[in-house]
């Protein structure tokens, strides 16, 4: 046994024995410390991941015994027009949501990084939507964009436009979801960018000022490159969340009108809990997982090419 273990045992007034070695051993302590995590993550994380693979090869309605159907679920997915449509809508949503939030938050963060009067109010106002739940956000916007009595339509009419259908219009519903979720996520992105901006070393900005750089030049040459890692993180994180859009759809449009907002996860939900095709739903989930994985890898690779980390 090590000298340290002997020292510990002796301090406790006993002769160092084998049991002391086991008890004092790092290995035991290590496993003891991680055991709660192992139990919970093993039972509710690892086991379900493996089970869901099996599930995706079954026809399962969660009540009667399941039947094994091999790759039939995945083959069916390839030919499912409703699934293809849901993928298109999800991609459209993501392509709108991520850039708007990223660029908008960047501009806001630059504006909020100054010393202005009322900055506390501005920052609180921008951050507050982050703590509201998806359900509450959906309810608020449902009311704001109500076609008959909503205040947004009232404003439009006053400005001379016609009242819009918003969530009840198949062509507008998805864009309303974009606006709603941008409102909810902007603050989070601003926080990330602000932290990154404040991480730019003071000396660099002071040197730029002394060198006579204009405000725009200083931003573009000094601050913007340092925002690379933060931008990459945000794009990846926002994309992952955008591809998993569900809550807001459930509370506002329930996938409608006319399936206009049936995104992948909502289609998954319908398959699992309304049509009772749990196996099919799980296959959808795995395809979604694959898509997220692929997109993240692509984004990381692009990031490696363009993002410079401080050495």
């Amino acid at each position, binding site marked *: 046994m090590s000298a340290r273990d002997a*020292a510990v045992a002796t*301090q406790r007034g006993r002769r160092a024995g084998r049991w002391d070695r086991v008890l004092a051993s790092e*290995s*035991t*302590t*290590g496993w003891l*410390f*991680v055991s*709660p*995590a192992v139990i919970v*993550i093993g039972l509710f994380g*690892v*086991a379900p*991941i493996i*089970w*869901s693979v099996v599930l995706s090869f079954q026809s399962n309605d*969660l009540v009667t015994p399941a039947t094994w159907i091999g790759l039939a679920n995945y083959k069916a997915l390839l030919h499912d027009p409703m699934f293809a449509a849901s993928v298109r809508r999800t991609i459209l949503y993501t392509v709108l949501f991520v850039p708007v939030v990223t660029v908008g938050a960047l501009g806001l963060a*630059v*504006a909020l*990084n*100054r010393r*202005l009067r009322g900055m506390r*109010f*501005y920052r609180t*106002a921008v*951050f*507050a*939507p982050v*703590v*509201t*739940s*998806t*359900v*509450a956000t959906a*309810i*608020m916007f449902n*009311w*704001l964009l109500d076609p008959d*009595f909503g*205040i947004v*339509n009232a404003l439009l009419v006053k400005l001379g436009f016609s009242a819009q259908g918003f969530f009840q219009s198949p062509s507008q519903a998805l864009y309303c979801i974009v606006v709603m979720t941008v409102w909810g996520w902007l603050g989070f992105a601003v*926080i990330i960018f602000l*932290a*990154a*901006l*404040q991480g730019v070393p*003071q000396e660099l900005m*002071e040197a730029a*000022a002394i060198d006579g750089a*204009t*405000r725009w030049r*200083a931003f573009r040459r000094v601050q913007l490159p340092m925002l690379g890692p*933060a931008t990459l*993180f945000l794009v990846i994180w926002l994309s992952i969340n955008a591809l998993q859009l569900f809550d807001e759809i459930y*509370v506002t449009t329930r996938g409608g009108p006319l399936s206009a907002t049936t995104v992948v996860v909502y289609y*998954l939900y319908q398959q*699992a809990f309304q049509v009772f095709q749990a196996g099919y*739903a799980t296959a959808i989930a795995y395809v*979604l997982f694959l898509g*997220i994985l692929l997109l993240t890898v692509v984004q990381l690779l692009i990031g490696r090419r363009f993002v410079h980390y401080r050495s």
Partner: protein
Amino acid sequence: MSFVAAERADVLDGAGLTALPEPAGHHRRRRPSGWHLLLLPVALLMIFPFVWLVITSASTLAETRVFPPALPVGFPVTWIENMVHNYSAAWTQAPFGRWALNTTIVTTVVVIGNLVFCSLAGYALARLRFFGRTALFLVILATLMVPFQVVMIPVLLICKQLGIVDTLTALIAPNLVTPFGIFLLRQFFKTLPVEIEEAARIDGATRLGTLVKVLLPSMAAPLATVGIMTMLWSWNDFLWPLIAITSQNHMTLQLGLSSFVGSHTTNWPVLMAGTVMTQVPMLLIFLVAQRWFVQSFASSGVKG
């Protein structure tokens, strides 16, 4: 201020720094910054949904069925009367109190569980040598990558086997330890100098003792991050409660609120009142501890 000095000050201002003070005798009133033209409308747009939410909860039903909508009459007395009517209606028409209790129980247990178990696991993964440590860490990381929708049905089936479906336990147990918390704390422990722990060990402290007495004080920031992120996420969680809970009395606030929508699709004032009640706790905590919130989000993004 000379033009050059003004430009210089502008660049520094853009970095949140202040320029050196002007020499005496050059006192010119600074123009109010043009940034307000951007920030003020944006800020007002961001808080407008909240404002309209509260105003609607102070309206009568008849006033919400008019187009175009107008501010409710009779500020402030009638507003308060309306609010009393609407909020008590929401409170009695649905078990908001019960839902709040459920959510509080679940969130409290989940936060405490995460703080304790993620610290233990993070410390072990960072500092203790044991067989399978690297493999275990990789497995935990891998589960972070898998979206919830992949596992939600099997987790439901497991809960069925355990007989905990439609109970608060089903909301607590799967979230008692999260890979996110473990990852964050492990990374943090790796940044601490080993010497402190070695000194404690030589003095005869146990591993647990070292962790609690020596390292805990310096863990305030990452613990706050894990605590706040877990609290916010647990309070606002929707999809898992939607699947796991079926009886009204076991619902969480968000789940209950969404069910409340179903029965109140046209009773906007009462619906808004209910919504306000579910959001006030988190908003209050946010207003009081804004700095902690912001710091938590920022640091989880930097490490992520």
